[in-house]
């Protein structure tokens, strides 16, 4: 059996780290869906407030989405532009 090289170990750990980082993308999706459902309930109850509801949801969802983007960036950098390989 061949010994595990440092490079292979770093690549394997990076792949696992990328997978873990992608978990960050699930939360905003669930949150946005939940907010949209509640927003639809609110508009059904009070149709004249649609503009305010959409505006508030828009700003909240845009801020929440950035958190998912951070996770995605970390995952893609670990996979395709890994800075840890250069340290070996």
């Amino acid at each position, binding site marked *: 059996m061949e010994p595990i090289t440092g490079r292979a170990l770093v690549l394997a750990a990076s792949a696992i780290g990328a997978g873990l980082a992608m978990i960050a*993308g699930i939360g*905003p*999706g*669930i949150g*946005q*869906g*939940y*907010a*949209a*459902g*509640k*927003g*639809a*309930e*609110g*508009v*059904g109850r009070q149709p004249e407030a*649609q*503009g*305010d*509801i*959409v*505006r508030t*949801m*828009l*700003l909240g*969802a*845009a*801020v929440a*989405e*950035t958190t*998912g*983007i*951070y996770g*995605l*960036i970390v995952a*893609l*950098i670990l996979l*395709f*532009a890994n800075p840890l390989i250069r340290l070996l």
Partner: protein
Amino acid sequence: MDSVKQTQLRMLKSGLLLNGFICIIALVFLKNPINFVVGIVFGMAISLLNFRLLYLTLNRAVQMPPPKAQAYATSRYLLRYVITGIVVYVSIQADYINVLGTIAGLTSLKLVILKTELFNSKEYFKNILKRKEER
């Protein structure tokens, strides 16, 4: 309270202003600023288009029944997520785009929203250290 259209226009203007400011700083201080500026323009364009797509999604979702709205908003979120992933991947692979510039452009919208909507009251900052009874 502003209308949704006014809010979007304000976000667009503030985003352009912030990213223009970052571009000027990059032009002055960086050795190879063109790649960074291209990255910022790329990221900002996708970020603003994503914001518009988010508005169209939510505007349609609030007119649906709640369970359907939930599924619709989540599926559209995944679509935007994939678009963002493609953008970051392209900027990593392309030599003429700086990935840090793209990331700055993509996340600048969050800073703009926080600045214009949350931290926009001077009174809040003046009274931040005062007790509630003293205000």
